Each structure stands twice: as C-alpha cells, then as structure tokens.
C-alpha cells in the first residue's frame, strides 16, 4: 500500500535529491526533482519557489536553464530532519 507523505517529507525528499544527484556540482534540473520527488509539476514549481525563497535551495541559471543545488541551510535542515524523524518515529509518528 502506498504511504501518505507529509509536506515535510516531500521537502526532505526534494532536498535530498538536490544533495545526492548534484555530482557534477552544477545543480539538478527540475525534471530530475520531479521524477524523484514524485509530485505534480505545478506543485513542484511552487515548492521550489518556496525553498529557494527560504534559502534551502540555490537557483543556478546555466545556459538559460534553471538548476538547483542544496544550500548550507538546506543541509542543516536535512540533518535536523534526520534527528527529529527518529524522535517522531519512536512515538510511532511520521514527520
């Protein structure tokens, strides 16, 4: 059975994708984020705008294409997410 993902979990998935798939260091495209984030295009663009606005993602404009890479703030968020996910899981809850 497919498990419901909370907004926090979706954000963590997007940030983790931007961190893990940025192997060349020039960011990750929206198609990759869409594929790994598993949300609709319109929702993804809204989320990315919010995450860039909050300073968790950095937008890079390479050859007229927008790419995204995780910021230091985003990395700190993922670290905190990992710690609190374990804490919430202890009580049988999901972040």
């Amino acid at each position: 059975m497919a498990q419901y993902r909370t907004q926090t979990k979706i954000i963590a998935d997007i940030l983790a994708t931007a961190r893990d798939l940025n192997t060349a260091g020039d960011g990750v495209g929206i198609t990759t984020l869409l594929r790994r984030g598993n949300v609709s295009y319109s929702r993804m663009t809204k989320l990315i705008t919010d995450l860039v606005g909050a300073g968790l993602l950095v937008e890079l404009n390479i050859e007229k294409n927008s790419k995204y890479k995780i910021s230091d703030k985003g990395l700190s968020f993922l670290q905190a997410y990992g710690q609190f996910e374990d804490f919430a899981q202890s009580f049988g809850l999901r972040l």
Partner: protein
Amino acid sequence: MEGLLLLENALQFVGAFVAFSIALVSYKGVKQTRSSSLLRLSAAFMFLGTGFLLEGFYGFGSLSLIPGFEVSLTTLLIAGLFLETAGYFFLAFSHMLDVVLDKRMGVMLALFPLMAINQSSLAVVLTSLSFYFILYGVVETLFAYSKNRNPNTLLIASGLAVLAAGWWMSLAFTDGLLLNIIQLLLKEVGLVTLFIPVLKFSLSKKGGWNGPV
C-alpha cells in the same frame, strides 16, 4: 498511607518533568522542520505536563503541605485531569490522523462509548477517557512498529502499555495499599520509558538549523 500519597504526588512532578521534556524536544522539532506531527506531540505533552503539575499541587494541597490551597482543590483536580485527558487525546489524535489518511479506522474507537458512559463522577469519566486514549496510543504505536521495525517504537509502545496498566489498576482497584503501590510503580516505569527517546535525542544531538522552512 500518607507516605504513599506523598509518593504519588512526587510521581506527578516526575511525570510533569518527563512530559515537559518531550514537549520541549518536539517544539524544537516544530521550529526546525515545521512538522505537524511534532506540533501535535508537543501539544499533547504540554497538556500532560500541565495536568501532572496541577494534580501534583492538588495532592500537596490535600495533604496540607501548601497552606491556603484548600479552597480551590476540586477545581485544581478537575482542571489537572481535564488537561491530562486532553494530552492523551492529542497523543491518540496524532495516530488517528495517520489512520484516517491511510483510510483505515481503528477498531478501538468502537470501545469509546462503553468506557465513557458507565461512570458517574467527572473525575472518573476523565480518568476512563485517559485510559482509553493511552490504550489507543498503545495499539497504534504497536501498529507503527509493525511497519517501521524501529526498536524505539516498541519501547514507547511498551511504556504506554505499562502506563495503561497502571491507569487500569487505579480505575479497577481503589482500595488496598499493595495495589496502590503496584499501580504507582507501573505509572513510574511507563513514564520513565517515555523519557528514553528524549535522552537518546539529547545524546545524539549535533546541532541543527533554527530557521523556518
């Protein structure tokens, strides 16, 4: 007997400490991740902590350890029990949300009217509701464990189960010194078990981000 009452009141303050610790860690989590699950957990333990605190003050007031406290004792007890019930409700409610979202309603909900309408006094009704909510929490936490296989989840489920056993004993047996001591010990062990994730979190903490998402 007075020594036992004193111990019971001291336990309320231990409970308040544990509950406020969990609420604090959860609230830090809310600030850092904006998680609604942690917000509900934080609210649950904030209510529980305040409830324990009020009941502790009620106990010391009834033992005349706090002078001039006798007038509002009943109000204090009812307020404490009400907050405690609200706390357990939020704890169960966190699971209920998951259950509804999974389109699977807990069978335990069907027991609710049986537990609530058989009692006459308000204090007993609130205690019954608390017991029911803890029981619901046990079932859902065990269900969560069956999915995530996290040993900490099993630990919390066990802690809640021991706490539920203590509550059941306090509902079922109102007389008897030995039974009172056993139910106090059960509640104490249950509460201390709930404190373990806070300890683990504090020990593993490497610092995090404090800004909003």
